[in-house]
């Protein structure tokens, strides 16, 4: 069965790119536009991985990661954050919250695939 990945970003183009790239690799992708949307969609189905932006309206990425880690079903799910800033502090905040890995935007499709493969196997 193909692995399911939840992609969370308020930018439609990033979502589309993530979606397009991962689907081509045979993953199933669910899209969400912010943290709150993600939590409502994730409730319905189990996912193998979450890719999330950090800056988002309603509920940002850090809060989303914290919420997921607090839920026993997602305690060990790999979470990748998309950091727009290459600044260390944002990355550290994400790590603190429980992110598994990160990708600095802008990124190329190959980089995305490499990270997903590294964490999902």
């Amino acid at each position, binding site marked *: 069965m193909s692995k399911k990945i939840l992609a969370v970003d308020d930018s439609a183009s*990033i979502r589309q790119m993530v979606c397009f790239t991962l689907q081509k690799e045979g993953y199933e992708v669910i899209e969400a536009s912010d943290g709150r949307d993600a939590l409502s969609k994730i409730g319905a189905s189990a996912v193998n991985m979450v890719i999330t932006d950090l800056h988002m309206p309603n509920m940002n990425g850090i809060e989303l990661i914290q919420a997921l880690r607090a839920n026993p079903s997602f305690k060990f799910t790999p979470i990748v954050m998309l950091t727009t800033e*290459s600044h260390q502090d944002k990355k550290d905040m994400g790590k603190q919250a429980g992110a*598994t890995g990160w990708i600095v*935007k*802008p990124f190329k499709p190959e980089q995305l695939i490499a*990270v997903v493969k590294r964490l999902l196997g």
Partner: protein
Amino acid sequence: MDAPKQVYREEAFELLSDLEDALIELEQQPGDLDTVNRIFRAMHTIKGSGAMFGFDEIATFTHTIETVYDLIREGKLSVDEDLISLTLRSCDQIKAMLSASEGEVQADDALTLEISSAFKRLIPAEPDDAAQNARCGISEGGEEDIDEKVEATFRIRFRPHRELFQNGTNPVPLLNELRSLGHARIICHLKDIPDLHEIDPEACYTSWDIILTTDKEDNAIRDVFIFVEHVSDIEITLIDDSNGIEEEEYKKIGEILFDRGDISLSDLENILGRQKKIGEMLVESGKARRSEVKSALVEQEQVRELRKKRVAASVGEGASSIRVASHKLDSLVNLVGELVTVQARLSQLSAQRNDTDLTLVSEEVERLTAELRDNAMGMRMLPIGTIFAKFKRLVRDLSTELGKEVNFTTSGEETELDKTVIDKLGDPLVHLIRNSIDHGIESPDARKAAGKPAEGTIRLTAEHSGAHVLISVSDDGAGLDTEAIRSRAIEKGLISPDAAMSEKDLFELILTPGFSTAKSISKVSGRGVGMDVVTSSIESFGGTVEIASVRGRGTTITLKLPLTLAIIDGLLVTISDEFFVIPLNAVVECIELSDEDRRHTHGRNLARVREEIVPYIPLREAFALGGGKPSIEQVVVTEVGERRIGFVVDKVVGQHQTVIKNMGKFLRHVDGVSGATIMGDGTVALILDINKITQQSEYMEASMNAAGHHA
């Protein structure tokens, strides 16, 4: 224009209008940090996504502006009217660039430069650009060292902290990624696992030693661990590079353990006093764990092996390849084939005997045979480039003769194919290339008139696709003329004048015997032997021919060939005590067919497979085999071309390693059977040519329908 790009553009336009609003707000309240942040974010997204979707110009342009707003955010620059109007101008410029990519008027490069440098002047002492494009844990491909790759061996000690799992890390993919870098041997240490009642099931107690021989740099290894750096101790040590030929003998086990700090020097000397196997003694005395010793042994072994290899290589460079007469290879493959057959017999016997010792041996033989088979088949593989070369000359000669200008390019020369396939491929390819030059590429004048460069291009490419190799010949010539094909086919009586046919079906007509649309018969092609020769020779070794063409743009003909011919994986089936093999690569699935299912379709040969109607061919009737059929039959659903066709059999036995034997002289031309194979117990099973069987039954169906009409 692909979809993601389109979405990016729409989004960028949205962001820009939002940006303009924000700018005007900022003009009224120059100190409002929220608005500055909004502008920064918008610019940032435009830049970031721009780079991802290939709008590099926009990305570079916005980068400067973003830097300026970052400075404003940090309070290092202040907002004034000039800045706002400059930013508004840049918005217009970005819009122009976005439209330009849509094929509209080109954006004014000079203006881009002017605005960009105006922004740059605002930045005090430009920060390093490279630092901005920070790394993301994955180094970009293509930038790898161009120097000759040198192998080195590293010792990697990966000691995760207890909380490794807490952030969702799974160490297994990391170890697999290391494996993909080169030759890796991984030793797992379990010494820290506490007693059951003390175990925290969410904690990581394991650690690993990895001995990795790779041509990548140690940065690539560090890269693998970038996400776990903060939750584990990682130690990467270079233990051998390619320069150490002189000292062939690698360190002793004790030295390695001491080097790593697993034991102390006094431990080592103490132990060395008694002479036994050092590793054993260390374990016995409890100074080192068994897994530690094992890890050291692995390291020693790997480095020694590597050095030995290097010494061997430096002694005789020429020994890297030898020439062997091809018939010797053929007989090797034949012998392996026999061996596979005998092995199948052995497996069958051992399965009946229920003797563990025999089973053990039989399984070992099975494993070795499979390995031997792969090796022997591998030896027959040749890069297809060996035949590509000769076509260059052919193209040159032909194009001069026909007064056409042709540029010939090839790619995928390194694609490997079975020697037998390559041998049979020469003539069909010559034919295809001839066709392209003669029928495809127009004369230089005609090309110019059509707005194309006078020089035509023919591309010959080869690539792997699963168990197949795709070889295609494409030209940028006139393309196929469907009308000409249609009228020609009608003239030849191949189709009726009112036949409604899809473009694809029309293209396929040119593969039928005796078909040629060339207006005049030239010296090169159109001598009555046409594409049908190509088709039949490709099909003779299990390949297929596909045509794609756009009028005025060119034609591509693709040959889909099996990787190898001698041994295939097959699906063994039975029909009234006879065995048959269906090539496994064509099989999609197997379903049951009961009398009841049959009643539902009112006697028509159609099966329902998950809401899809699949026609099937009852092989018992096709081969006129007697015997009563079972109440529940099996349908093997296969993919023939692009369609699904089912074959009804009595029983599906299972997967079978099939050594293909040619049929004897008299039976060679029997349609529907492509060969035979000998099974473990000596019985012969026929290998079905599902393409042929499908064609035949379609033909029968058509003629029966025709007869029905006349009656």
